[in-house]
């Protein structure tokens, strides 16, 4: 049986088309394709534009015959890829944030903002307006001024320390595990196994 017909059969199975009817359609299609090939005609001459998309072709045929209530949307490659990319990017972002927090926790020890006086020009840290709390590494040497950007709200952590290392490590773990799970779930071979099952 040709690859095209096999793909159609998988789609009919996915849509719940009864086996006898799926067998009948597959046999007719196979015979037509073989006859066309024997005459030197291309698959496109038999199937029209459907020759390039067996799953849509199979779904349309079953739907028009009334074998399925309405064609369940066939996940096409492009939206599937973009969805996988979005999920993977989200997990990657979580992992990066976790890594940054862990590194800051190790090297900076805290988020305490202890030095708020404006120092010499050039040593100031400009705070973007959207940041409410700014992690600043603990400074041992020269003093560093923190200069709020336009509209920024300065929050001074009054000396209390917050150890971010566990949070960072946790986020890093969640991000990495999620990223791996996403890649495994959307891998072509894993999808093929699920669809054929």
């Amino acid at each position, binding site marked *: 049986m040709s690859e095209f017909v096999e793909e159609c059969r998988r789609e009919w199975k996915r849509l719940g088309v009864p086996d006898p009817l799926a067998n009948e359609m597959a046999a007719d299609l196979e015979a037509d394709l073989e*006859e066309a090939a024997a005459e030197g005609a291309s698959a496109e001459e*038999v199937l029209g534009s*459907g020759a390039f998309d067996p799953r849509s*072709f199979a779904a349309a045929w079953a739907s028009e015959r009334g074998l399925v209530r309405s064609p369940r949307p066939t996940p096409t490659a492009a939206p599937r890829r973009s969805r996988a990319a979005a999920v993977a990017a989200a997990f990657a972002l979580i992992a990066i944030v976790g890594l940054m927090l862990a590194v800051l926790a190790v090297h900076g020890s805290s988020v305490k903002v202890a030095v708020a006086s404006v120092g010499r020009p050039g040593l100031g840290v400009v705070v973007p307006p959207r940041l409410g709390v700014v992690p600043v590494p603990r400074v041992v040497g020269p003093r560093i001024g923190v200069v709020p950007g336009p509209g920024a709200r300065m929050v001074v952590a009054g000396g209390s320390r917050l150890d971010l290392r566990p949070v960072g490590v946790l986020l890093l773990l969640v991000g990495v595990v999620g990223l791996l799970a996403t890649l495994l779930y959307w891998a072509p071979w894993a999808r093929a196994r699920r669809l054929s099952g």
Partner: protein
Amino acid sequence: MATGERRRTELLRGVLDLCLLAVMVEGPAYGYEMTRRLRSRGLSIVGEGSIYPLLGRLERDGLVETYRAASNGGPPRKYYSASDAGRRALAAGVLEWQAARDAVDAVLGPVEAEVEA
């Protein structure tokens, strides 16, 4: 898809069911045989939607009757023929097509003459 091809596709989409019924009236035919009959009249479905979903719809709507029979030396095939309802639908569709074609001709005909002049 080029503009010309797209327009041809749109035009054909509305009448392909009538064309299938018309070739069935000539005698029962299986899927590829209908494709062959259409092609012999210069109507290729290359680039168009397939006839199979359309045949499925005609069958669901009771416009065709089907039976299985052996083809010439090949495996058993599903033959389609126009039912009484299908013949009535074909007759009505041909009238609609002619009316539409005449109306479009009335609009486009003078343009064609001007372009050629």
